[in-house]
């Protein structure tokens, strides 16, 4: 009879240790027969490969930028450092949340591979855009405020200034340190022009989902202040006065029409 006096949790602990470190000796007691213990690597390799593939689909522009080999090297180190803490790889490597407290892929680079960040300082901006784009794509687009609804409200004599307006859930306002949106779009969606210059220049971009596709727009300074305020649940009025502080020519009615047209607004529920 085989020795089965071990507990199931002992077994899971030893296997977990192996998956984390590659150390397989503690698993020997659970094996029978003559097959090499090294075959256990099938499981660890499968896990690493799947997790790296998850990161590749979450950071596709970075894969193009670095090339697959280098990306995979960094990604493998991240998987060892911060195994996925959710049983899906959708969103693996993105910013920590209450439910998924892992350091993000970029935070890992910052603390563990500072030389990489020093060499490619704008990689954080690439990561910010990757995350925002995918999150905008996978967000619900319900509740968009339509022109018809607004016309109805006006007909009913509602004061538009009083409406609890907000940006739709899929909107993501991204503050960047480099002027990198053009390069990122090329990496993400098409041909990369040789000799692309990347300037240090803070700027703000907004992504949002419309008709199942992600839209992007680079924002003027006052617009950016306005959008960020709305994203932080400030009222339309408060956001407008903050934008006016920045630029006295800020025209909220033009912007309102643009936002409505772009399907970027919803009513707070």
């Amino acid at each position, binding site marked *: 009879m085989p020795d089965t006096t071990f507990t199931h*949790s002992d077994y899971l602990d030893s296997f977990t240790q192996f998956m984390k470190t590659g150390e397989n000796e503690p698993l020997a007691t659970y094996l029978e027969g003559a097959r090499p213990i090294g075959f256990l690597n099938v499981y*660890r390799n499968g896990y690493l490969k799947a997790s790296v593939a998850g990161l590749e689909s979450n950071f596709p522009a970075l894969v193009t930028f670095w090339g697959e080999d280098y990306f995979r090297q960094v990604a493998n180190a991240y998987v060892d450092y911060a*195994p996925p803490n*959710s*049983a899906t*790889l*959708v969103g693996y490597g993105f910013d920590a949340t209450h439910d998924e407290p892992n350091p993000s892929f970029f935070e890992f680079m910052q603390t563990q591979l500072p030389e990489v960040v020093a060499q490619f300082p704008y990689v954080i901006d690439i990561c910010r855009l990757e995350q925002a784009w995918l999150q905008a794509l996978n967000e619900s687009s319900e509740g968009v405020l339509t022109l018809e609804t607004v016309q109805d409200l006006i007909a009913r004599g509602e004061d538009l200034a009083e409406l609890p307006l907000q940006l739709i859930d*899929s909107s993501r306002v991204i503050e960047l340190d480099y002027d990198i949106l053009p390069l990122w779009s090329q990496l993400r969606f098409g041909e990369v022009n040789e000799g692309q210059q990347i300037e240090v220049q803070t700027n703000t971009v907004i992504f949002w989902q419309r008709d199942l596709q992600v839209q992007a727009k680079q924002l003027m300074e006052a617009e950016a202040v306005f959008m960020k305020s709305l994203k932080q649940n400030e009222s339309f009025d408060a956001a407008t006065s903050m934008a006016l502080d920045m630029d006295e020519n800020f025209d909220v009615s033009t912007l309102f029409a643009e936002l409505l047209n772009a399907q970027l607004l919803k009513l707070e529920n």
Partner: protein
Amino acid sequence: MKSQKVQFDSKQSTLSGAGVNLKPQHYEEALSLADSSAQTKATPGLWFEVHTENYFVRGGPRLHYLQAIANNFPLSFHGVGGSLGSFTEKPADMTTRHLSQVAGLVKRFNPVMVSEHATWSTSQHAYFADLMPLPRTEQALTCLCEGIDRYQEAIGRSILIENPTNYLDFVSEMDEADFLMEAVRRTGAGLLLDVNNLYLSYRNTALDPKHYLEALDPAKVGEIHIAGFDVDPNFPNDLLIDSHAAPVDEAVWELLATALTKLGPKPVLLERDDNVPSFDELMQERNRAYDLLTASNNTEHESQLAVAHA
């Protein structure tokens, strides 16, 4: 309590025919087969399966297309992160969140079938994105059954559990078929028989497929998987890997035919997750499975007639 559980019975299942596991790059082509106005003839018995975890999103094109697929074809949810075999009394937050997301999707899409694996993949704080084996001990069996119970309770219906691919022999107190049949009996779940996994377990660990098929209760088998495998370049004779990255091997087609003869007609699903070819190519493989299934259906029908006439 346990004896009161509703028991899975394949005769009650409404799923039939042959399906393909659906990848996002094939949404449009898949939907074009549903378009009755198109010149293309409808494909009888076609259904789709998706990895449940890929739909853990709040909206956007993924859920939109999944809804369109669900409106036009039978849909099956196949979980890969449920980690049924690492049940703990105090589930990690990760597990609780996972189950509530699966439950939400099941409620929204009402798939014809829901399945998971008789393996494990999460420890308290980490998800190891692969399907890790269970030793076939009484303790592991109890743990697996509790994992199945919790999953079924969360989604409010019974599931199928899939046999693993074996690469090594873990200590065991019972054969794999008996282990799985016992889990199914205790929980009311059914079995998803992956004949590629079975073939690889045979090649890798000398598990006897004929004996295995005989030990299964056909009424408990609700679905069959077929897929392709890779040969490990370092151990080409000893290590075949369940990669889902190649066409189905001839030996697996043979085993599928044997399984259909032994178990009777069952819905068959073609799995392909890597090196994904064109949709047409996948459909050709799927059609081959459908033809085999139709042939086995006819044979069963004839033998029933023969019995009735005898």
